[in-house]
């Protein structure tokens, strides 16, 4: 066992922080208040990711064959932590580089690779994911959006919901049921659908979390070329499973939570309340949760470095990350008191984003089920 960062990774973190200090605008705190899905942040991400790409860091973890640098998962984790801690200036593009690109490398045709990978690694394209449906939340296999083959195209009809980022997206990583007779996780295909096709309609779902956070995507007789299908027909479940295995580390929510927590402590100090023992204990509890979440996430990265198959470590890390995020969000409210009533306040902004923790990464209940089954080996209920 070894808990020290490789000196080069540690040096990289410093370099990255200097980069962020240079590249993030002075009003970044205001700009990023509505989260990575806001118009402002999505727009910003195009310029920012281009700069990251220039520095060679945007897709550094990709194989050299696809323009990457074969950087280790640890190096990539440093990037992820620093990005999340700073409000994810990559906007939605963390999805592009983390799992959409790798899925295309694995399953894409030459044409698909040529079309998508250079744009992703240049930081100039925005994607969204079309997974959830009104009657299939955490239960992906219940999806109903149909894609009927009509010669060279699929005619797609259905509805996706809770989609983030899609108001500005160029493409959608879309799950459809291509075999109408199929059940559950069979008969599903993945389409790399251009968002500007006729019949694609995006509607914002107004939300207390912030503007442009959630959307519905209505698909009415959308004619998607068969050439847009990623991987074999009807076997999209395998594609998704592969892609999400890349996502197993998940967002470094703990890094964001730890930074917010430091800011809460700073606020308390500035207001002369850091001497209050109750506050000290609450801050410390939250800090310990962030640290535990960090190490549980590192355990997942370690498994990935070693080429181990995805394991229950991911579920443990997600439950811990969610808890840390929520506790910090609630603590921000409590420490800021009635000032937190203001929409623009630091505390309210953090609370809004933390409210969605545990839903966004797949309901915590599903994670707990998996821990019970795989880690504790408890018998399945009826």
């Amino acid at each position, binding site marked *: 066992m070894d808990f020290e960062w490789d000196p080069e990774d540690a040096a990289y973190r410093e370099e990255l922080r200097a980069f962020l200090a240079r590249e993030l605008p002075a009003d970044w705190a205001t700009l990023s208040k509505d989260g990575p899905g806001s118009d402002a942040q999505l727009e910003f991400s195009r310029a920012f990711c281009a700069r990251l790409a220039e520095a060679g860091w945007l897709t550094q973890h990709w194989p050299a064959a696809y323009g990457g640098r074969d950087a280790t998962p640890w190096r990539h984790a440093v990037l992820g932590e620093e990005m999340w801690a700073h409000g994810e200036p990559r906007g939605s593009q963390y999805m592009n580089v983390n799992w959409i690109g790798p899925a295309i490398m694995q399953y894409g045709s030459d044409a698909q690779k040529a079309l998508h990978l250079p744009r992703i690694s240049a930081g100039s394209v925005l994607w969204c994911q079309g997974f959830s449906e009104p009657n299939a939340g955490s239960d992906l296999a219940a999806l109903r959006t149909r894609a009927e083959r009509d010669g060279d195209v699929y005619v797609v009809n259905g509805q996706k919901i*809770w989609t983030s980022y899609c108001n500005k997206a160029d493409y959608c990583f879309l799950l459809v049921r291509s075999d109408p007779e199929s059940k559950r996780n069979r008969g599903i295909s993945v389409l790399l659908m251009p968002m500007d096709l006729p019949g694609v309609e995006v509607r914002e779902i107004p939300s207390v979390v912030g503007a442009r956070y959630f959307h519905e995507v209505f698909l009415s007789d959308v004619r998607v070329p068969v050439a847009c299908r990623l991987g074999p027909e009807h076997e999209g479940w395998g594609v998704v499973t592969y892609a999400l295995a890349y996502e197993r580390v998940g967002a470094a929510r703990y890094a964001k939570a730890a930074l917010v927590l430091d800011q809460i402590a700073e606020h308390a100090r500035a207001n002369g309340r850091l001497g209050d023992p109750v506050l000290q204990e609450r801050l410390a509890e939250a800090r310990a949760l962030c640290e535990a979440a960090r190490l549980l996430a590192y355990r997942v990265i370690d498994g990935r470095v070693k080429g181990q198959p995805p394991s229950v470590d991911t579920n443990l890390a997600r439950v811990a990350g969610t808890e840390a995020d929520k506790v910090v969000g*609630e603590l921000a409210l*409590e420490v800021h008191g009635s000032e937190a009533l203001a929409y623009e306040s630091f505390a309210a902004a953090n609370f809004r984003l933390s409210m969605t923790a545990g839903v966004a990464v797949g309901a915590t209940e599903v994670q707990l089920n998996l821990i019970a089954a795989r880690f504790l080996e408890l018998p399945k209920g009826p």
Partner: protein
Amino acid sequence: MDFELTDDQQAVLDGVDAILARFAGPARAAELAAKGGYDDALEAALGEAGYAEIALGDGTGALEAALVAERVARAAGGVAFAASGLVAPLVAGRALPGPVALAEADEEGPIRFAPAARTLLVRDGDVARWAPLGPGDVELVPSNFGYPVGRVRASARRGVESLGAGSGRRLLAWWRVALGAEALGAMDAALRFTVGYLRQREQFGRPLGSFQGVQHRLASCAVAIEGSRWLVYEAAAQGAPDEAAACAASYALAAAGRVHRETHQLSGAIGYTTEHDLHVWSMRLQALRLELGGPGAQLRALATERWGAPPAGDRR
């Protein structure tokens, strides 16, 4: 001892429910919240039916006022009934020009209902003061916690007329009871919404509400809500003794945090959209927890009242 409504109390609530069915409800609340508005129509309807005087009424009093405040909160009514109809009359001994907003003299943050209030009732140490609020006194603050909120000029926060020695303490106690009643109504509605949603929402082939993991968490919320209910009712019925009032607020605000967390966790994404109703109550629950020094201040007050613990100051 009697834990059931009298016929008269039932009649009071039937009356208020009828008004709320016409003038309140989550849809109306969401509409008002979008523009930070106040529900003048509901206020007028309650006033015409005589509910503004219920706390000092003939045969009605604090308990009935608390029951009405709970109902208004349950229906997400966009009026300051808890302050205007429960706290103010019981502290001042007479109705003050409503709507009433409640403030602490040294608290500078936004105040619930201040943008619409005609009267500010201020706790300033051991005395309560009140003052009329003029148009220039309040600055509207954008917020999405379900209430119109605004900052009140420091000069206006000092109040004009003192209600005498001891009135500050009475204000504190009734304010706590009011917070408890409002939290109770909102929690009850938030839980009912969530239960209704989970009864019909299917996942993995059966209603989410049939999963035991879900059921136990909802059942624990029910215990917390029913506990809040009786603590609030008892404190109101007994005239808000300091200890009972602090106890009711302590318990209800803790329950409010739990109910917020669990209802959102179990409702998933629909909890965050303004197209479903949960947020109408859940965000208000958080706002109530931001008032009067928060849950911690109520707990410390309870320790002081119960055991004479030395006042430890607020956490903020």
